[in-house]
């Protein structure tokens, strides 16, 4: 089994590199998944005014901290892309590790936050609001973890100066994960 790429992969009838095109389509499909989930949540929320009371038990400060952490990590992803464009794989890898660290901090903050909430009895089965709270944030968290793992692989290649175009691709994905959080934060924390 050869690992050489088919000629098809190198063609570009649209002018957009194939990898980038695919990442955009991945993001398109993800938008619909999160769109379905969040639309269901919004419909329920509008139909249940009493959920505002449940939502008041979320801690906005944890959410705000995580928003800040994720936005900062996105900045690192941009810097990694900048370094990769200049052909500096080592620097790109370093910035990617910084982005990854942001993801890790995000997950740790989440863990602390959820532990407290679960100890107070706000578990996923408590009521409709907490169903959505854990499911939506959990699905988002899985995307953060997946993004970190892929980023480590790409950083490892970039360190050796290989596949530098992928630095931009993971950056696009990471911004998307960031934007999902930008939607989750007001919907789950701020709206009370």
């Amino acid at each position: 089994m050869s690992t050489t790429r088919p000629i098809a992969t190198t063609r570009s009838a649209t002018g957009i590199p194939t990898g980038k095109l695919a990442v955009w389509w991945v993001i398109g499909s993800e938008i619909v998944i999160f769109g379905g989930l969040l639309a269901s949540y919004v419909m329920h929320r509008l139909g249940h005014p009493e959920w505002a009371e449940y939502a008041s038990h979320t801690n906005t400060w944890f959410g705000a901290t995580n928003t800040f952490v994720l936005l900062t990590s996105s900045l690192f992803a941009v810097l990694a892309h900048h370094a990769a464009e200049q052909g500096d794989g080592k620097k790109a890898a370093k910035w990617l590790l910084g982005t990854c660290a942001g993801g890790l901090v995000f997950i740790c903050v989440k863990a602390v936050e959820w532990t407290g909430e679960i100890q107070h009895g706000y578990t996923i089965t408590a009521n409709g609001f907490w169903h959505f709270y854990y499911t939506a944030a959990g699905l988002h968290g899985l995307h953060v973890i997946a993004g970190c793992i892929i980023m480590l692989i790409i950083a490892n290649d970039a360190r050796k100066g290989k596949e530098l175009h992928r630095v931009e691709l993971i950056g696009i994905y990471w911004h998307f994960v960031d934007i999902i959080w930008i939607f989750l934060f007001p919907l789950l924390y701020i709206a009370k």
Partner: protein
Amino acid sequence: MAEAGTAETHGAHAHDAHHEQGFWSKYIFSTDHKMIAMQYMFTGIVMALIGGYMSYAFRMQLAFPGQSVPGYGLVSQGEYNALVTNHGTIMIFWVAMPMLIAAFGNYLIPLMIGADDMVFPRINRLSYQIFLVSALVLIGSLFVPGGGFGGAWTAYPPLSSSAEYSLTPLGSTLWLVAVALEFVAFLLGGINFITTLMNARAPGMKMYDIPMVLWMIVVASVLFMASVGPLIAGAVMLFMDQVVGTGYFDPGRGGDPILWQHLFWFFGHPEVYVVFLPAIGIVAEIICTFSRKKLFNYKLILYTVFATAIISFFVWAHHQFVAGIDPRMANVFTITTLIISIPIAEMIFLYIATLYGGSIRLTTPMLWALAFIAEFMIGGITGIFLGASGSDIYFHDTYFVLAHFHYTFFPIAIIGFLAGITYWFPKMFGRMMNETLGKIHFWGTIAAFNSIFIPLFILGTAGQHRRIYNYQNFPDLADMQGLRVFATTALLVMLAFQAVFLFNFFYSMFKGKPAGKNPWKANTLEWTTTSPPPHGNWAELPNCYRGPYEYSVPGREEDYWPQDVPPDTAPAE
């Protein structure tokens, strides 16, 4: 494994000296799009046989209630539900999807656009592997304690969300996991299809030079991708309800069971067009080749495809007219549902216009293609009764609905597949199928198919509800048993005729007449390479000079003009 065994001997004469590969890397872990297409196709055929066997078991129970079914045994009430549910699930997700989109998509996209493979061969392989796991999980779900899921392929909660009601704690969860995995497989595959068609076309192939079937497969992939998201979200919620104990769909705890219906049908109705488009695309290729005419108004057909795809997102609630939705909403969805028949009807008119005045050759693939149009029309016209909310209130959940959607899905999944396989078989295996056997199979299948479902229309209009284990318990319906026996007998005949196809298929694969490069004298690029194509498809990748349907061009000696022939070699313009 069936697919490996049959493909192996086919490979013996497709031997390619500089790509010597072992058995595992060639047949099981191949990244070659043609081999992956074969894997999808053979898995689909096996699943179709399983789904057909299920229909045999439950139809026998309906015709001869309470008697032991030969080759199955007694069908209990729970098993009956599981058989009906999994028959539907298998036929849509594990037969129609893999055979039409995945098998033909994988096989045709690189060959028809003049590329050596898909743009992401390893993701392609991963997509099939996930699909195979999903099929195994689904089959496994039938054998766990409590039996397979029996809440219908639509899996409405609260029946599906609580083991207390469904009585299949493991079966329903495994069913859900299998369906979700299948979605992941097709999302990966779909992204590959879309990017390949967008980026990897041969030099010179412009947007309107793409064969219609590829447009349709790719529009179907986009449609699938844009509609399946909410159902994936819904599947996560349903999974949480089943396993974690949340109450998303439990009205007693602030949930809403109708939400699932919206999420399901927001996907479920576009899904009809996801499988319809590749099938009608296959038909487009065949009627052009066998009527030796240019596709009538290529661009208008393309616009009807786009219109169908867009409108299909605004019709879903016509499945929910009796679910307690607002009657004003029912009016809106009645109107959108009737509107979607316009582009479909337009498309059919354009196909008939393509046939008009052509030199029609009634080969087996052509017969299947024409049958598709005729049979699908019956499905489409009966759909108007169901799309109008007034008549739907009476017809809802009767055998009229069942017969209606079998008149759409059977043409799509079975006739569409058979049209495609009889047309591209020479390319896939390098040999011709037997025409006489093909025609015997065609007439047997078509006659039997109509004999199954026309009685079911009659039963439905008489008020016979779906998903009933034994109609003898209903005095008003018991005396119509004759029609049920007739339909079941026709099913037995139809299943028996499939043996003719399977024999023809495997016999021709080894003993058929050698096909040569272009047995049908068709224009599209896949016919310019050897049959079967080697690894990498062409020694030198072709260029494209014209549209795919230049048949019977005036002034040319031959009545076809392949896409890869440079203009200066043409005798006269």
